[in-house]
């Protein structure tokens, strides 16, 4: 079992007070805090080995390039890719999905083709497809969500057809925590020759992801939710797709030869990495992967699941509190409402108890609409959270009810 108290000490930002109370950070699904090891990796780059990459023969440039490509290897192993050339560095999940929409979209999608997403997607996995459909005349198909918060798999099967050119689906719902059975969904899609993009923003940090085992065609995730830096994320793509796809952004580093008559492009992954990349954040992300692997996914899973169980029971003791959804499998996050108290007010009141939760629509407006809600409060758990954190949350919720029941 994992020692969350010891782990917490690795995260400097967690050791502070807010409104005179010890900080209880339950907003890791929005962005996780960073262990000192990640901060150190970034500082190390800037203090020692800093230079632009891929362009120079001098020592600093060579070291920077070597570290950069070694990080790609580390991350490639972290998700079980076959080849590190399948790892494209992007800003985050949002950019990864936009890259696919733009490049795979331009390559493979035309009028009347269909793209399947679901009702529980984050806006980042909705709008790129809406924009693509607007531009191409393709049609967006939506897998409905059941009352429990699961995907309606029967409906999904009916949507699959020879017109379907892509399934883009979230691994884990950031709004209500549903873990989708992505391996089965991928297999089903592949039976219809439909390639699959997984939005892994909320999946990558809670369990070991093995892209070869999943057999997904694309997997997108953000560093900042994985205890890594901001500004960096990854698009994993199978070689066969990446090689076939046209470039995304044009610029330095993604070319082979440039002339006004004819420009040829570099091989993958560089074809998709125009311009100077976020060198320091790549080092930080690599450090984050190493940190997580040291903690171990088995321990993480055990700890987070136990804590989720504890939190679920604890929240259910709060009168008039309703947990949204009851999916078959849930990641360690809970979305809830308290009767007569708007989520925003809960957020402000909890903040005064030192508790940071997220409130609002969680960039998942269609799912909110499906549940007839404008906003929920969301508590999300990470490796550094403890039962005590949950106790403080629950205490704060009672306080909030007190304020509204005067």
């Amino acid at each position, binding site marked *: 079992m994992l020692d969350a108290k010891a782990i917490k000490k690795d995260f400097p930002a967690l050791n502070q007070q807010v409104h005179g109370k010890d900080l209880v950070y339950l907003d890791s699904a929005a962005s996780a805090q960073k262990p000192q090891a990640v901060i150190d990796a970034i500082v190390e780059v800037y203090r020692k080995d800093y230079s632009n990459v891929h362009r120079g023969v001098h020592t600093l440039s060579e070291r920077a390039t070597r570290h950069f490509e070694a990080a790609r290897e580390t991350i490639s192993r972290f998700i079980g890719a076959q080849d590190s050339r399948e790892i494209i560095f992007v800003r985050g999940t949002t950019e990864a999905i936009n890259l696919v929409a733009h490049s795979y979209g331009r390559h493979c999608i035309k009028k009347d083709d269909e793209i399947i997403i679901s009702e529980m997607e984050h806006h980042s996995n909705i709008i790129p497809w809406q924009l693509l459909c607007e531009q191409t005349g393709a049609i967006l198909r939506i897998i409905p969500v059941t009352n429990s918060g699961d995907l309606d798999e029967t409906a999904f099967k009916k949507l699959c057809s020879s017109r379907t050119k892509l399934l883009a689906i979230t691994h884990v719902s950031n709004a209500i925590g549903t873990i989708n059975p992505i391996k089965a969904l991928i297999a089903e899609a592949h039976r219809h020759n439909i390639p699959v993009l997984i939005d892994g923003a909320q999946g990558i940090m809670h369990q070991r992801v093995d892209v070869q085992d999943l057999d997904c065609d694309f997997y997108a995730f953000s560093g900042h939710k994985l205890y890594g830096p901001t500004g960096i994320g990854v698009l994993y793509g199978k070689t066969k797709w990446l090689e076939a796809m046209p470039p995304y952004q044009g610029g330095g580093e993604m070319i082979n030869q440039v002339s006004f008559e004819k420009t040829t492009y570099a091989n993958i992954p560089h074809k998709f990495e125009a311009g100077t990349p976020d060198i320091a954040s790549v080092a930080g992300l690599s450090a984050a992967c190493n940190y997580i692997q040291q903690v171990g996914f088995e321990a993480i899973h055990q700890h987070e699941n136990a804590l989720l169980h504890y939190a679920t029971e604890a929240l259910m003791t709060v009168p008039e509190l309703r947990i949204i959804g009851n999916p078959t499998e849930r990641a360690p996050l809970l979305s809830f409402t308290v009767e007569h108290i708007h*989520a925003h*007010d809960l957020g402000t*009141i909890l903040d*005064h108890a030192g508790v940071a939760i997220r409130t609002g629509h969680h960039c998942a407006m269609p799912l909110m609409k499906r549940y007839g809600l*404008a906003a929920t409060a969301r508590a999300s758990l990470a490796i550094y959270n403890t039962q005590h954190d949950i106790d403080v949350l629950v205490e704060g919720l009672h306080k909030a009810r007190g304020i509204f029941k005067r």
Partner: protein
Amino acid sequence: MNDYQHSDSFDNLFELYQEVIIDHSQHPHHFGALPQATHHAEGVNPLCGDTLTLYLKIENAVIRDAAFQGHGCAISTASASLLTDSIIGKSIDEAKRLFEAFHQLITSEKETAADNMLGKLIILAGVKNYPARVKCATLAWHTLQAALRQDAQPVTTEA
């Protein structure tokens, strides 16, 4: 971080969530549609998805009646409720001046002479210590401006 020191205690919350505010949020005045409305507008707070529709009945540049519908937090609902109370019977110009005074109240540190004209609205003063909530308190007011301008597009609280 200095601006947080003064709200270091949990009790400060009661400055924000005064009984009057809770009352207005739970029993808002002028809540509902206004069939005879001459002006209306929609407001959105993209941060939380809260929406509000404000209706005005204006005759001879005077706001004869007002009402609102929608869904929001205690602060935004109370603010909308207090807004309708305050503007009914006022001329358009007076309403605009009220907006200015209110905006001052909840965004600036110093008290101004204009605070006098605010009446009951003064109880929202505590919001200024909660920068993330200022938009909740101003949603109704931005919507009022949009209604007076007769905007067809929803107005947002974004900067």
